[in-house]
């Protein structure tokens, strides 16, 4: 035992090993969280759509109890036998509760199993690739769509840092000093996926869809980049971890009600920040190709857009890519505008003073809650608004957002110059 501890101590004292091991651990955590969130956001999408549209949504798929084969395959009333097994009488409230929750055949889990089953179905579906596609690019396209959002997530901080005896661990996979730039650069790569999908399908509807997607993504990246410049001017850093730390100390970007945030300067800056927020969120919608900006795949004129010719798991990759982009987009919005992992109201410092690990856990949960709330907003908008027409989208991007964001930069600069 002692040798193991000694070996571990030595290993962790080596800076390179310490760094690599923690990074791998964070990487695994980040991937797990994002992929889980892709699944969960599909579920949220469908459940919320159900609520909005006066229907239940997927609520039936559950874990069938007969899968837990304790009594052989002829089990007719799994719940009953399980209750007997645990010695719970049927009149007991636990039994009644189980019945009320419809556990008599399965554990419904609010339909959470549905996305997993859908995924399984897509895995098992027959793959049909038309003969006329350009095969190499056709296969590469879905990967290029799914990959970038996952890579871009590397710089998003999901919690603050902990000081261990071997050194501090920053709770983001890569604590880069160019955070937002990294995100823009990497998520910009997904354009290639859409373009290639549209082009390699060698068919007209996907082609138009691909062209639309390319133009839309490129145009909105411009406005997106310009929209956060006021933020960077205020924070004075491009490191996302520092940005969030600043927000934890001095009030969230959109909720400056503690620390320095109470000063007149921050409240004057609310106007440009709000403009930035609106523009940035809209751009995130456009980047994620979601209604009202789902030009590239708008069903009524382009059938399925760039993924018309795709089937089975390749289609699922596009699907997951879209949701991953949505999750990452939400994470960025939360990080920049809603305080990221910060619990808020000065609680972060107090928690950190009490116990490092507890603070990290609370902050992680706070981050996830904010993320979920924003995903809910995404879904809500999708099921409420009609979609734009293609030329209107481009007009909005180039003629409205570009001007507004540029003006916004000057406004912020003026406020910062005169009030300070």
């Amino acid at each position, binding site marked *: 035992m002692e040798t193991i501890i000694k070996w571990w101590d030595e290993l962790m004292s080596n800076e390179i090993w310490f760094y690599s091991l923690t990074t791998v651990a964070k990487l695994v955590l980040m991937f797990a969280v994002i992929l889980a969130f892709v699944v969960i956001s599909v579920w949220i999408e469908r459940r919320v759509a159900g609520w909005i*549209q006066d229907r239940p949504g997927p609520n039936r798929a559950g874990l069938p109890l007969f899968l837990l084969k304790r009594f052989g395959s002829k089990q007719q009333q799994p719940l009953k036998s399980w209750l007997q097994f645990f010695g719970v009488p049927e009149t007991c409230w636990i039994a009644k509760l189980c019945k009320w929750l419809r556990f008599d055949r399965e554990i419904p889990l609010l339909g959470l199993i549905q996305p997993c089953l859908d995924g399984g179905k897509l895995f098992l579906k027959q793959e049909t690739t038309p003969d006329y596609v350009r095969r190499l690019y056709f296969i590469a396209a879905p990967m290029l769509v799914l990959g970038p959002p996952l890579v871009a997530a590397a710089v998003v901080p999901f919690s603050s840092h902990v000081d261990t005896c071997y050194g501090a661990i920053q709770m983001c996979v890569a604590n880069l000093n160019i955070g937002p730039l990294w995100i823009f650069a990497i998520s910009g790569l997904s354009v290639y996926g859409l373009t290639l999908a549209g082009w390699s399908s060698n068919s*007209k509807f996907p082609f138009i869809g691909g062209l639309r997607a390319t133009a839309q993504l490129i145009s909105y990246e411009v406005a997106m980049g310009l929209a956060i410049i006021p933020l960077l001017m205020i924070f004075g850093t491009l490191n996302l971890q520092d940005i969030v730390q600043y927000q934890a100390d001095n009030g969230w970007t959109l909720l400056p009600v503690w620390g320095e945030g109470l000063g007149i300067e921050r409240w004057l800056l609310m106007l440009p920040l709000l403009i930035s927020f609106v523009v940035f969120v809209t751009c995130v919608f456009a980047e994620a190709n979601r209604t009202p900006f789902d030009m590239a795949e708008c069903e*009524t*004129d382009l059938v399925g857009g760039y993924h018309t010719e795709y089937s089975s798991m390749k289609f699922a990759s596009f699907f997951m890519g879209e949701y991953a982009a949505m999750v990452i987009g939400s994470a960025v919005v939360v990080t920049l505008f809603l305080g990221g992992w910060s619990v808020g109201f000065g609680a972060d410092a107090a928690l950190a003073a009490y116990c490092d690990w507890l603070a990290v856990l609370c902050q992680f949960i706070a981050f996830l809650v904010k993320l979920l709330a924003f995903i809910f907003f995404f879904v809500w908008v999708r*099921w409420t608004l*009609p979609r734009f*027409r*293609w*030329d209107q989208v481009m007009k909005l991007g180039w003629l409205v957002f570009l001007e507004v964001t540029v003006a916004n930069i000057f406004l912020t600069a003026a406020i910062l110059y005169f009030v300070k």
Partner: protein
Amino acid sequence: MKTTKTLEFPDATGCGAAYLENDADERGELVTLNVGPSHPATHGVLRLKLVVDGEEIVSCDPVIGYLHRGMEKIAENCHYNQFVTYTDRMDYLAPMSNNIAYACAVEKLLGWELPERGQAIRVLCSELSRISSCFLGTGVYAMDTGAMTVFLYAFEEKERVHNLYEKICGARFTSSYTRIGGMTRDLPKGIEKEILDFCDSALKTVDEMERLLLHNKIFIDRLVGVGVIPREMALQCGMTGNNLRASGVERDLRKTNPYLGYENYEFDIPVAKEGDCYARFQVRMEEIRQSVRIIRQVIKNMPGGPIWVQLDKGILPPKQDAMTGMEELIRQFMVSTQCVNAPEGQVYFAAENPKGELGFFLDSKGGGIANRLKMRSPSYCTLSILPHLLPGHLVSDIGAILGSFDFVQGECDR
């Protein structure tokens, strides 16, 4: 009693189709784009052969007939009562209206007049189906423009109409409710209250849909000024119904040639003069309100009495009598096998259906079978405008324009 209701047009802030005037660009390489016959925007099996320059449509050639079932020929081979079931399959979104229009056409040939209660029930049913069809038209239209939720709200109301259909005639969808000279059965007891309840909920849903869409900037921008059909063009292409009224022509057969006692009911003709997609949508929404108004009046003044024409020949006897009486049994047999004995002659009857003017031209050489039946289906005429209308619009407008016509392929191809 000629009343019209001109719809007001809320702030048309978005100059929707400014690109229509922009012809300065040189033409690029033209591409032929085949939309349909199975495409989400075409609501059935319409096929459009488009030639596009980038996103702009240069020419459009609609191809119809994918749902042709030879109904007019079938009509020459079965007697009048047998053909009622085929009329269900024409405008399958408003089967009752078709049944009623067809029955009225044959009755016009025979010179029969329904008793008051029969007429009132027919008015009630055709207005119910108008509501159902308009709800589907507006809801699907919302889906075409990307607002999925509104579609489901509308569909819920449509489902309620189907529940009422089921109670009235026993079938939810293919009603086959009418026979020549009457209806298969009288209204069930207590249906009036259910219909009135439905009217309330329908009005509520219409208001809700309006709140969601009519003042929505995205929706307005997409529709205002898109697919404008000028008055003259609409008349030349033989458009009827809501689509014509949205182009500023005050024509409603229920007012101009009243049938089934429509002159006794008070209602307005919704008219808009702009003739664009937005106007058509608005007119359709208003149509639901007017239908609710008519239904309430019908139920309020529902007369008693028989629902069948009171004649000794040509109509089915009551079932109990057929079981016991010789005469009645013979009559039932004759009606079932040979139907009515129609006089020679030609007759045209047109009814104001949800989709427009549905006309039946009957040529009879006597007996129970039509020598020739010609249908004037509103969707067919509506679609004839596409080659004139679509060029100059964007590919994205196809959904908006096609959806705004609210056409049904089953009726167009028949």
